[in-house]
């Protein structure tokens, strides 16, 4: 069962309606941007059929209309409660996994994927999961090793590698 309700001292961070409205607004902006670019590419008919922008232009228009419809619906019902989008505690937990993942990418670029995944797994287990250090380190090590053997050796899928792998001649 989920235990998301009834946490002590948990307050809503943001409500459902503003998030939905903003998201639809962002998509609307995206649709208009794409429509403009396609209009620039050409949305008319040539002797050889429709120009490159024709199809995506009209899809952008449909997208924009659907967004406007959605936004209008939200604005009309603005006063009616729609529940919370995410609570503070929940959002904190989301960031707990999202920020390490975000850091994982530059580290991958710098030290290679296998070292970065060792660090991510061991670090996450130790700091976020509060799991004993030796279990965290061992799990991270084993997982990275298995991945290395599976991808690099068995399946020939090349991953970004860093100084450590170079040391071993890969």
């Amino acid at each position, binding site marked *: *069962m989920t*235990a*998301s309700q009834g946490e002590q001292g948990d307050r809503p961070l943001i409500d459902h309606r503003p*998030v*939905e409205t903003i998201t*639809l607004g962002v*998509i609307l902006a*995206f649709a208009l941007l*794409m429509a403009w*670019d*396609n209009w620039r*590419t050409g949305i008319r008919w040539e002797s*050889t*059929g*429709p*120009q*490159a*922008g024709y*199809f*995506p232009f009209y*899809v*952008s228009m449909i*997208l924009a209309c*659907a*967004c406007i*419809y*959605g936004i209008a*619906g939200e604005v009309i019902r603005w006063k009616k409660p729609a529940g919370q989008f995410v609570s503070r505690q*929940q*959002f904190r*937990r*989301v960031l*707990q*996994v*999202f920020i*390490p*993942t*975000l850091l994982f*990418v530059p580290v*991958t*670029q710098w030290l290679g*994927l296998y070292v970065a*995944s060792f660090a*991510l*797994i061991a670090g*996450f*287990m130790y700091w*976020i*999961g*509060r*799991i004993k250090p030796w279990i965290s380190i061992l799990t991270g090590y084993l*997982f990275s090793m298995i*991945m290395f053997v599976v*991808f690099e050796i068995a*399946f*020939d*899928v*090349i*991953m*970004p590698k860093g100084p450590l792998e170079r040391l071993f001649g890969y």
Partner: protein
Amino acid sequence: MEALDLLFLGFKVLMTWKTLSLMMVGLTLGIFVGVLPGLGGPNGVAILLPLTFTMDPTSAIVMLSCIYWGALFGGAITSILFNIPGEAWSVATTFDGYPMAQKGQAAQALTAAFTSSFIGSLVAVMLITFLAPGIASFALRFGPPEFFAVYFLTFCSFVGLGREDKHKTIISMALGLILAGIGMDTVSGQLRMTFGNAELLRGVNFLVAVIGLFGISEILLTMEEQLALRGHAARISLKVVWEVWKDLPKYWVTLLRSSAIGCWLGITPGGAIAASFMGYNLAKRFSKDPNSFGTGRIEGVFAPETAAHASGTSALLPMLALGIPGSGTAAILLGGLMVWGLNPGPLLFVEHKEFVWGLIASMYLGNVVGLIMVLTTVPFFAAVLRVPFAAIAPMIVVSCAIGAFAIQNAMFYIWLMLLFGVVGYVFKKIGIPMAPLTLALVLGSRAEDAFRLSMIGAGGDMGVFWSNSLVGTITTLAIILLFWPLISAVTSRSMKALRLRP
């Protein structure tokens, strides 16, 4: 029977140690993926797809489809033992499965779930075996207008039959179509929507989108909900299996009805989720004792599981025969076909006989092997759920990153995956469905090409979509489906009005 001969050919293709062991690997990974909350069929297949890039297409599809079967089986384990549906289509299984486990009948419930899954798939695979070649050879006569009409039908049925808000389905689908159009235009060779960005020249790869939308976003959602797992232990003995199987004939109506619902909803893109609920509700409605549903009736496990599997399997029928996926996972498998250099569509049955029939044969074999595997390894997989999520979450993140990078050996794709992860998280929370986006992303350029080729052929006359009875019927059907909610509302209102006026 030609189909049987060809099926035999398929089995011959399968019977190599390499393929069989890949099958076992696929099933194991699949059950694993299905058991873990926060990972499901589409994510599992998407994340593991890069593993298959260097394989030959037949081995690759066998492994991937086995991941899919495994995930279908695995979803039932968590629903019954932990009351957590590992997959959305196992939600209905929890209604009676978990109460059974609470009453100490976990083994019976699991056996029932696995067996009915097996039956559902078997019916669907037989349907594929005998129907798909016929549909494919019929579709060989299709020209661009017919193909566009069929794509249009697929899109419209998602909008008309989906249970989400219509405008949200349209948003999701239109976004997918636009993203599919980014990059080089396949007809004129012109660049569009790239804004001079070199990374966008290649377009937005659908796999990156899928890994982000399904994989990363699931991790975020699962973290947010903070799952605390408390489950029942289970071990399945032969005696229990025998007891459940002995009673099977009693439930033949339920099994048959659910199979039929599943097959129908699988072929039309209604999906396994709708099928499982419908199977459950109909079993309840036709039962002599509907109130006992929800208290741990074995029929309440049979009905949704059979329907979910029948639908999950039959979703591959339109994918194989027409190149149109019936579900999100089928869309990813279809993307896989393109990666391996195969052109999905009716020609597949002519040009790549071994591939198609190898896949169909692997559905039979994979389901038999899968059934035996899940029946014997339940305690092990139930133990997987006791592994803390703090260990599983980063592993899934790493797997996703590997998958995203492997597509083009590009770091840009890992960033893009993260972006899609955030998008997926928000979309899921505000109720924008993701399956239409995936479908549109995979089919987008094919649909556009078909549209433009038919327009070129007809000199820009939209009438080409009604130019003969075949294409006209499909197009009309598509438009009816698109406005189906309106039509059914109007008809039910007028029916009411008629009844009021005797």
